């Protein structure tokens, strides 16, 4: 079907794939983990299923019915019955580094090389035919699948080629390292893979064949029921077949456990003893599944196969016959898998056993070959090759003579020889090496005689007479009827004899030649795999503790007082943890000895202590041996030789030395750190002292500062000035002098009040000014000095006058921190100045009185009225009227030189201009000032208008009239006119005011021309009008007249001219005030009108605006004018009298203010005739 080279290529590819899997399992972490899975372990045990299973079972079923089945029931029973035994073997392997079944049995029997060699030899002889079986199966199937391809290039070479490939694969997979105890995770995974592959391939073949023959398992059952084949072991009948059945079952139980490959996979490759638990059911399940189609295939094959096809060939032959090339190839590779798995493991194991137990003793026995000890890996390779080619040779020589299954059972029987030796050895400690040797050798000889030799006879290598008549014709020596035991199946017969011989040899040999002490010790060590330190068990406590305690006290008393000796004794027993024990183990005894000696050494030196302890006692010979044995056990547990443990102790000693040195270095560093800590502590103490000293100094300085502060405060409190600091919000700081607290009513200590709040209690206006000023400082738009200059500088309260100055206190960075406010009580100075001022006012008024008595009297009369009006101000009052009154009073007072009243009026005017209402405090001040003036003047002159002022001209006129003897009525009329005041006098007062104002304002000389035309007006009737004209005069001087320099510049006389004129016509009274100044700035007036939303289109509109309240052409208000109040008051007074006022102005030429009153309204006016 396929060419030989194709099949070889497939084989190589398949093995290469397995090799990659092996590499993955050994190198990849996940592969390593996979190799440790219990499932992989269980599948690895399926290496039990060789080509014998794959092909031979069907062959056996085809001729022997169910006779193939015990081969697989046996492992099931073995695992069911003895999985715990199997696991115990695994545990022993973990403890003793077991490498093979031979090594295991040798280890049990005193590590006997002879026993190991015997087991190796038995297995070698028994297994080689088994390997031959595998090679034969592969060769036969190779021939089968390449048949018909027409190629003969490999004819006759297929077997050696396959054997060579097997050798190479085995070395590559399993013998790459020398340490046979090393696990081969790659190989285990490969075995599991092979097991899966051969199972799938066999099931595929089974399904195909059963399907082809019966249409399924149901069809097979029907066929099997209807036409049962006439084969043995399918129903009750032949006793011999039953015996063979049981025999094969027992052999299979043994083979599953003790065949070298099974032992290797199950024990040596075992990673975890607990895996045995899972494999106890999983491996039998595998065996069940792979055998489920054996009988159907055998029955179906007999129906389908071509004539001449044997049962062994059904599995592969039928797919080939059916032309199923892929299935055929798969079945072939499955069979190859079964073969290579078995050969690989078996060869690897046998190579190890051969090299270790046959070659190595030979090398030791023949020193010239000792160089090979260092070449043991190559020795194993050679052993593997020899083993496989021995199988090949066996196949070539004997393979054609037997059914495959026969060869397998012979091998099973060989393995069965070792089973009693292993099992009895595990549980009977008296079993000895000699017994094992006798049993193994006897069993092997009998096996060879009763089982192996018959197969040689049947292969034609020996004469048949041996079987029929016995050697040399001795019938009772017939191999299959030894000692006359005939009638049994040959296998059962051979097994019975070989096992009997083995048991007998083992028992008799062990009884006659029991184990020596060394062998017994090794046996005990071998079987005590639990890992417990039994020498510490209570059952091994044989030394009397009380006796040791007495001996200890006796020794110690020689060197210590009674109490001290008792204490050391107690401490020694406590150190060894044996205080409450009645008996001690040898180890505890030795430990106690050393402890006591250490205590003694501390007191009397080690040499003396050692001498003293001789009298303490020592362990007897038996205890000494026990101790040696425990020591040996410990070494065995540690897997160390005495030399190795010495090396390790030396290593530990060296390590301890290094650790000591390291400890010393660390200690030195610790000392350095300690010294550093001491230095640091000293530094800390010094630092603390310095700190304390510093604190002391600070305290001293603080005390000094406090004292200085106190002294400074005393100084501050002593002077007449008060000091207070405020922040930019007016918050009052704690730094303030006591006098401030007295003046301002501030309680000592902390206060939340601001200075503006405090000042408002004295004067709202002052408080508001401070608030506004601080706001400007906070805004920082203006220079600080300018802001400070705008803060209120004085205030008056309850006859006290205080002056305030402000000093910025800045930080180092120049930023304002506080404002130092210095308050000075200037009451005395103010009073003094006012006294002086009042004197001047009195003098001034007196001069006026002497010069113009009616004017002074009118001043007082008007003043009384105006002050009364101002004081009567209320919210219902017209503020414009009140402001006019204030303005009028200010002007009149200024004309009379009464500066105190004029100042108060100005202050009131200022306050009224800055707020909606008129501050009552300022009103009160004005009223007080006026009343004070009135009182002072009343003491000197009579200010009531009781008399008549007679001018000299009037006096001369009346004299002249008398001389002319004018009529009485005319005289009376002349005298009556004396009660009218000449306008000349009122105009003169205005002129005087104009002159004074011009002088005060730096306007230079002013020429005032008066033209009264002898007009007289009633003083009381026109007093208010003349008073109101003060505003007009002030406007003329302040607004109209230029400075002398300006006048010169515009080509005007340096001295300005003012004309004051009264004229009385038949129906009207005219009063005119004119100047030659700069005239009205109509453009500016127009702009102001526009700002106030007033009509300003015509000249009449602008003239009207002049008299509008609050409109002025001046940019700034002065004490003289600029508020836009005066002209409004003038027109109001004029209109009240029924007159009208007109303005005529020409820019650069001058302005005229003209009043015209109807005659009738000018009551009391008279014209001097």
């Amino acid at each position: 079907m396929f060419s030989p080279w194709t099949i070889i290529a497939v084989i190589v590819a398949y093995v290469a794939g397995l090799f990659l899997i092996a590499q993955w399992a050994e190198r990849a972490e996940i592969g390593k983990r996979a190799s440790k899975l219990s499932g992989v372990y269980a599948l690895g045990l399926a290496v039990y299923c060789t080509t014998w299973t794959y092909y031979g079972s069907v062959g056996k079923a085809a001729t022997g019915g169910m006779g193939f089945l015990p081969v697989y029931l046996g492992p099931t029973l073995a695992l069911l019955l003895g999985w715990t035994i199997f696991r115990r073997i695994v545990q022993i392997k973990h403890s003793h580094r077991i490498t093979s079944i031979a090594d295991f049995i040798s280890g049990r029997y005193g590590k006997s090389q002879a026993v190991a060699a015997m087991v190796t030899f038995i297995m070698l002889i028994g297994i080689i035919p088994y390997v031959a079986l595998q090679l034969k199966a592969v060769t036969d199937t190779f021939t089968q699948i390449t048949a018909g391809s027409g190629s003969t290039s490999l004819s006759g070479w297929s077997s050696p080629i396959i054997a060579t490939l097997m050798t190479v694969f085995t070395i590559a997979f399993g013998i790459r390292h020398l340490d046979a105890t090393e696990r081969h995770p790659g190989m285990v995974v490969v075995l599991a893979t092979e097991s899966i592959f051969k199972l799938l391939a066999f099931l595929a073949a089974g399904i195909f064949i059963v399907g082809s023959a019966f249409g399924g398992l149901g069809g097979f059952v029907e066929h099997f029921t209807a036409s049962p084949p006439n084969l043995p072991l399918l129903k009750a009948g032949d006793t011999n077949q039953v015996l063979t059945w049981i025999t094969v079952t027992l052999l299979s139980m043994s083979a599953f456990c003790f065949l070298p490959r099974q032992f290797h996979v199950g024990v040596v490759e075992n990673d975890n003893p607990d895996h045995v638990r899972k494999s106890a059911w999983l491996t039998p399940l595998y065996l069940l599944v792979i055998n489920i189609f054996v009988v159907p295939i055998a029955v179906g094959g007999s129906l389908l196969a071509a004539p001449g096809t044997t049962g062994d060939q059904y599995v592969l032959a039928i797919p080939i016959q059916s032309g199923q090339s892929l299935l055929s190839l798969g079945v072939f590779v499955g069979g190859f898998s079964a073969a290579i798995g078995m050969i690989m493991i078996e060869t690897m194991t046998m190579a190890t056993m051969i090299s270790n137990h046959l070659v190595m003793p030979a090398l030791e026995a023949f020193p010239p070959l000792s160089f090979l000890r260092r070449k043991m890996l190559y020795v194993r390779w050679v052993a593997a090759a020899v083993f496989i080619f021995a199988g090949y040779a066996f196949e070539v020589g004997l393979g054609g003579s037997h059914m495959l299954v026969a060869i397998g059972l012979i091998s099973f029987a060989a393995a069965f020889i070792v089973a009693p030796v292993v099992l009895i050895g595990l549980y009977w400690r008296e079993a000895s090496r000699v017994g094992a040797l006798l049993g193994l050798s006897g069993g092997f000889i009998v096996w060879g005689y009763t089982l192996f030799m018959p197969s040689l006879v049947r292969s034609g290598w020996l004469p048949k007479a041996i079987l029929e008549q016995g050697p040399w014709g001795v019938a009772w020596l017939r191999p299959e009827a030894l000692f006359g035991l005939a009638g049994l199946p040959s296998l059962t017969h051979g097994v019975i004899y070989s096992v009997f011989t083995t048991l007998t040899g083992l028992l008799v040999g062990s009884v006659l030649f029991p184990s020596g002490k060394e062998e017994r010790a090794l046996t005990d060590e071998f079987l005590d795999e639990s890992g417990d330190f039994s020498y510490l068990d209570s059952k091994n406590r044989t030394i009397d503790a009380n006796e040791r305690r007495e001996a200890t006290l006796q020794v110690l008393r020689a060197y210590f007082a009674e109490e001290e000796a008792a204490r050391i004794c107690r401490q020694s027993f406590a150190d060894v943890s044996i205080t409450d024990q009645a008996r001690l183990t040898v180890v505890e005894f030795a430990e106690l000895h050393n402890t006591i000696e250490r205590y003694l050494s501390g007191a009397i030196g080690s040499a003396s202590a050692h001498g003293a302890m001789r009298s303490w006692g020592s362990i007897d010979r038996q205890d000494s041996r026990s101790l040696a044995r425990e020591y040996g056990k410990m070494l065995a547990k540690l897997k160390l030789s005495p030399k190795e443990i010495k090396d390790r102790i030396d290593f530990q000693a060296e390590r301890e030395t290094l650790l000591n040195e390291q400890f010393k270095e660390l200690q030195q560093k610790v000392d350095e750190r300690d010294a550093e800590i001491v230095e640091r502590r000293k530094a800390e103490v010094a630092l603390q002292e310095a700190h304390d000293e510093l604190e002391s100094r600070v305290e001293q300085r603080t005390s000094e500062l406090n004292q200085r502060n106190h002294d400074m405060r005393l100084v501050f409190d002593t002077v007449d000035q008060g000091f207070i600091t405020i922040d930019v919000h007016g918050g009052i700081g704690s730094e303030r002098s006591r006098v401030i607290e007295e003046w301002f009513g501030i309680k000592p200590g902390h206060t939340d009040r601001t200075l503006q709040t405090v000042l408002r209690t004295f004067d709202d206006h002052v408080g508001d000014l401070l608030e506004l000023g601080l706001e400007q400082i906070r805004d920082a738009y203006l220079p600080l000095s300018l802001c400070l200059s705008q803060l209120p500088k004085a205030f008056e309260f309850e006859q006290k006058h205080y002056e305030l100055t402000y000093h910025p206190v800045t930080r180092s960075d120049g930023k304002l921190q506080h404002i130092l406010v210095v308050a000075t009580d200037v009451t005395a100075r103010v009073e003094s100045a006012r006294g002086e001022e009042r004197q001047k006012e009195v003098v001034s008024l007196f001069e006026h009185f002497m010069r113009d008595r009616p004017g002074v009297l009118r001043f007082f009369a008007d003043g009384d009225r105006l002050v009364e009006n101002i004081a009567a101000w209320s919210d219902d009052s017209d503020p414009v009227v009140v402001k006019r009154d204030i303005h009028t009073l200010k002007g009149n007072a200024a004309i009379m030189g009464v500066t105190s009243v004029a100042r108060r009026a100005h202050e009131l005017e200022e306050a009224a201009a800055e707020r909606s209402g008129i501050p009552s405090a300022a009103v009160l001040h004005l009223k007080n000032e006026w009343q004070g003036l009135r009182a002072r003047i009343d003491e000197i002159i009579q200010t009531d208008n009781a008399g008549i002022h007679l001018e000299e001209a009037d006096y001369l006129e009346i004299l002249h009239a008398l001389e002319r003897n004018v009529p009485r009525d005319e005289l009376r009329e002349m005298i009556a006119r004396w009660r009218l005041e000449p306008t000349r006098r009122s105009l003169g007062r205005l002129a005087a005011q104009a002159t004074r104002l011009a002088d005060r304002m730096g306007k230079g000389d002013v020429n005032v021309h008066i033209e009264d035309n002898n007009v007289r007006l009633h003083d009381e009737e026109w007093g208010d009008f003349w008073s109101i004209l003060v505003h007009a005069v002030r406007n003329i001087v302040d607004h109209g007249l230029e400075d002398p320099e300006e006048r010169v510049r515009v080509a005007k006389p340096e001295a300005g001219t003012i004309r004051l004129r009264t004229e009385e016509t038949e129906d009207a009274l005219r009063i005119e005030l004119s100047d030659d100044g700069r005239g009205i700035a109509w453009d500016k007036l127009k702009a102001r009108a526009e700002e106030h939303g007033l009509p300003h289109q015509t000249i009449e509109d602008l003239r009207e605006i002049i008299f509008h309240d609050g409109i002025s052409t001046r940019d700034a208000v002065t004490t003289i004018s600029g508020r836009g109040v005066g002209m409004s008051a003038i027109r109001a007074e004029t209109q009240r009298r029924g007159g009208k006022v007109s303005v005529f102005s020409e820019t650069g030429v001058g302005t005229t203010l003209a009043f015209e009153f109807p005659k009738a309204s000018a009551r009391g006016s008279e014209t001097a005739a």
Partner: protein
Amino acid sequence: MLHRSALRSPIIHVLVGIVFLALFTWPFLAFEQPINTWVFLYGSWMVAIACAFVLTQGSGGPASETDEGEE
């Protein structure tokens, strides 16, 4: 139901093993029909595997602990 510790008893294992050895041999002493033999053998094999599964559940943990006292 057997307690887990009881499943660890070697006596149980031996008894079960003997019982199944007898069962595996029984068809050749009793059955006349091959199909019965075939079915019985595979059936009892399955039961044996099930028993193995149950018995192995009676042991767990480190092997050194479970095997103490088996000698």
